[in-house]
């Protein structure tokens, strides 16, 4: 096995805008020597059937993610704040839609 060519290539995450007006959405990942190659490969691997109009590639190492172990601490408090939702407030029926 050739050590020079078989060392791990950096990983990139691929995001695709499927249609105008939509945001870019994560579709998968791939390896490439640099961002330019990642973009070319993403086009071949992830858009063979008109899946997109625009591609972003981001080096996976550049992503900072929340820890799944912190899920409750981070997100549970929002569940108790029901006054953040419009249905919390009462409006008389005869006022109509608001």
């Amino acid at each position, binding site marked *: *096995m*050739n050590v*020079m*060519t*078989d*060392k*791990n*290539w950096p*990983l990139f995450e691929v995001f695709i805008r499927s249609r105008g007006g939509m945001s870019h959405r994560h579709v*998968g*990942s*791939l*390896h490439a*020597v*640099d961002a*330019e*190659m990642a973009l070319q490969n993403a086009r*071949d*691997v992830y858009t*063979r*059937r008109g899946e997109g109009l625009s591609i972003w590639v981001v080096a996976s190492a550049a992503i900072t*993610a929340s*820890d*799944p172990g912190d899920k409750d601490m981070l997100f549970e408090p929002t569940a108790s704040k029901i006054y953040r939702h419009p249905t919390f407030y009462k409006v008389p029926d005869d006022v109509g839609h608001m």
Partner: protein
Amino acid sequence: MYTQGLNTIDAHAASPADAEREARFQARIDADEKIEPNDWMPAGYRRTLIRQISQHAHSEIVGMLPEGNWITRAPSLRRKAALLAKVQDEGGHGLYLYAAAETLDVTREELVEQLLAGKAKYSSIFNYPTLTWADIGAIGWLVDGAAIMNQIPLCRCSYGPYARAMIRICKEESFHQRQGYEIMLTLSRGTAEQKALAQSALDRWWRPSLMMFGPSDKESQHSDTSMRWKIKRFTNDDLRQKFVDATVPQGHALGLVFPDPQLKLNEASGHWEFGAIDWEEFRQVVAGNGPCTKDRLRARRQAHADGAWVREAALAHAAKRRARSDAAQLAAE
């Protein structure tokens, strides 16, 4: 199916601390929650998934070979374009799956190395030869048909990245099966010689296609744990029966005869009953003694070796560009 090498049981003893986490993990699975890469998971779950997903990926990559064999000899430009697109899809499917396996802390290079060293398993079906153009029809119709039967439930697999890869793959596979069936249809309605080609392809691919689903439930050691973890949703025998029930009428519509004198419809159950499968042949192929096993590995190794200069050039080019842009930045400062 594409993961027939899962024939040994992991010996793993959980520590008491793990037992509690494992119970919580199982509760999430039972509640149909998806497990994501950074979530805690039992070592056995991780190992099973790495093996299953990588075997599946290897199958896609090796699966390009029997069909690639006919690209230059496709009978028309239409057939050639379709076959090229199909083989390119298989390559793409292999890449989605390798990426899913890599989320479990294994590198692409390790997986490829296992395949090239002959240590990894891939589906037995790809060790059979494609002797005539009709075999390309039979592969699309039967092999991809069997694969779809197996893969649709995998879209609901408990491991998120695998399930998401399978959704993409299933969307793309239905074209594969239809293009194969169309080849069989054209040959079946052609000259006597063409129809004989289609019949011969069915004769050769039918039993190996049934073997793709893996050993009978009575002998498969992995089903219980995989079912509990919702990596697997149906047993091998259930999926095989579903495939037979769906495929036999399609074959009859072609006017072809299945190479199984015991094949008959059970009016009461509505299922097609079929003759015994030669499991010794299956074991031999899985053990590495298939008709084309050596050719397949040789072809993969050669492709990897032939591509070495491309990988080297890509790295050198990237390094040069990086150096140039660094120098330009330095000059600007």
